[in-house]
């Protein structure tokens, strides 16, 4: 899991959420690219973040594209976070004995604009939360940092400040994640994305 590096935080606020990741793509201790985000948009209110082996990340992303396209063509509606999460868990557990080496986080707003945040391990075991979740190389220290700074019912601005601070604090101490960050702020009005400055090493 430390081979390619990376970290992701998701934080929930009042009918909105923010998902942030670093931008480093490396091979062991060599940094190859500094603009590789690990967060992908499924539809306007559903985002997935993945950390792990980059080849598996691309493959899972293409398989999910396939399945969500078939779903929306057949049912004439977009897939909902709960259904999407179960689909991903099934996909990951299907490869129980030769797993995809990827940890995933799903963040979305369902049709009533309620928060949906779930993180999964490599076999698809879910752990839902309503406040924050982190995955990646500095996820343990990020959990501690988020616990201090997170407050319930934050609005978009506060959420952005908090998640940026937490990400910068976590990334600066870890050599396999870093090289800048990107934050997506999602509410029922839409998505705003911003880049943040961290230590560039």
């Amino acid at each position, binding site marked *: 899991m430390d081979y390619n590096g990376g970290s992701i935080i998701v934080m929930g606020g009042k009918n909105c959420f923010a998902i942030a990741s670093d931008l480093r793509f490396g091979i062991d201790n060599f940094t190859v690219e500094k603009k590789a985000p690990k967060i992908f948009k499924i539809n306007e209110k559903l985002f997935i973040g993945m950390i792990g082996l980059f080849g598996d990340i691309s493959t899972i992303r293409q398989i999910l594209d*396939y399945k969500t396209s*078939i779903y929306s*063509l057949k049912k004439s509606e977009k897939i909902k976070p709960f259904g999407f999460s179960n689909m991903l868990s099934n996909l990951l557990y299907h490869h129980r004995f030769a797993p995809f080496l990827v940890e995933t986080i799903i963040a979305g707003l369902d049709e009533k604009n309620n928060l949906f945040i779930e993180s999964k391990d490599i076999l698809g075991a879910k752990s839902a939360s309503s406040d924050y979740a982190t995955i990646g190389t500095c996820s343990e220290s990020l959990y501690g940092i988020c616990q201090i700074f997170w407050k319930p019912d934050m609005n978009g601005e506060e959420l952005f400040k908090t998640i940026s601070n937490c990400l910068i604090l976590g990334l600066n101490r870890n050599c396999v994640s870093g090289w800048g960050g990107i934050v997506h702020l999602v509410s029922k009005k839409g998505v705003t994305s911003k880049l943040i400055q961290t230590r560039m090493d």
Partner: protein
Amino acid sequence: MPSKIDFKTTSFDSGGRISQLEFSMETINNGNPVIGIKTSEGILIATGKNNLSYYSDSSQFLTKIFLLEENIFCAITGSNPDAQALVDNARIQAQQFKQTFQEIIPLKKILTIICDIKQKFTQTGGKRPFGTSLLIGGFDSVNGFQIFRTEPSGNFSEWKAVAIGLNSYTNQTILDEEFKIDLTIEDALQIILKIFYKKIKSFKLSSKIEIFILKHDDKQQLVINCLSPNEIDSLLKKTETLKVD
């Protein structure tokens, strides 16, 4: 061991024809009417809906137009379950193409996939052909707007204006008379009304036909519009006022 496969369905008779294919055309000529018109602005598809009694709850299953991919649609006539099987298969093939090549499947390619399936059932042992004719259309950056018609034999042809299903011969004659090279979408809608209206004078038009329009919006994005019942009914009022004048 005697073979249980009946080879009559996939063999030629002495006249050089496959009888099952002729019979499948009968199924298609009894199916719902479908008209497709290609203009320089976009594509217009209209299908006739079946009559539903007031105690039937199947109104959501009436649609005869399906999306195969974000820019490719398919209108069906003839045997609905046969067509659904083809549409489901085509959707999966389109997504597999996209997964391998990371680009949207070209129109000709999805068409040949569907027609290869249809042809296989006319040649390999004992299965009957699909009793459907599909109208497949969409937009390609290479070839622009296209409409194709497929037949149970696996044959396909490209058209600017085509009618399949019930009364296809009469409807095609009307299209031959009315079609011009620089039609607009408005003109095409008038042709559709001419074809459908004369049979359903006193009924609400929107319960009898559905209309889909495929065109580019202001930002050059492809937009597929399904006309709402109100819009269809208001089309009728426009023609009536014109006739009065």
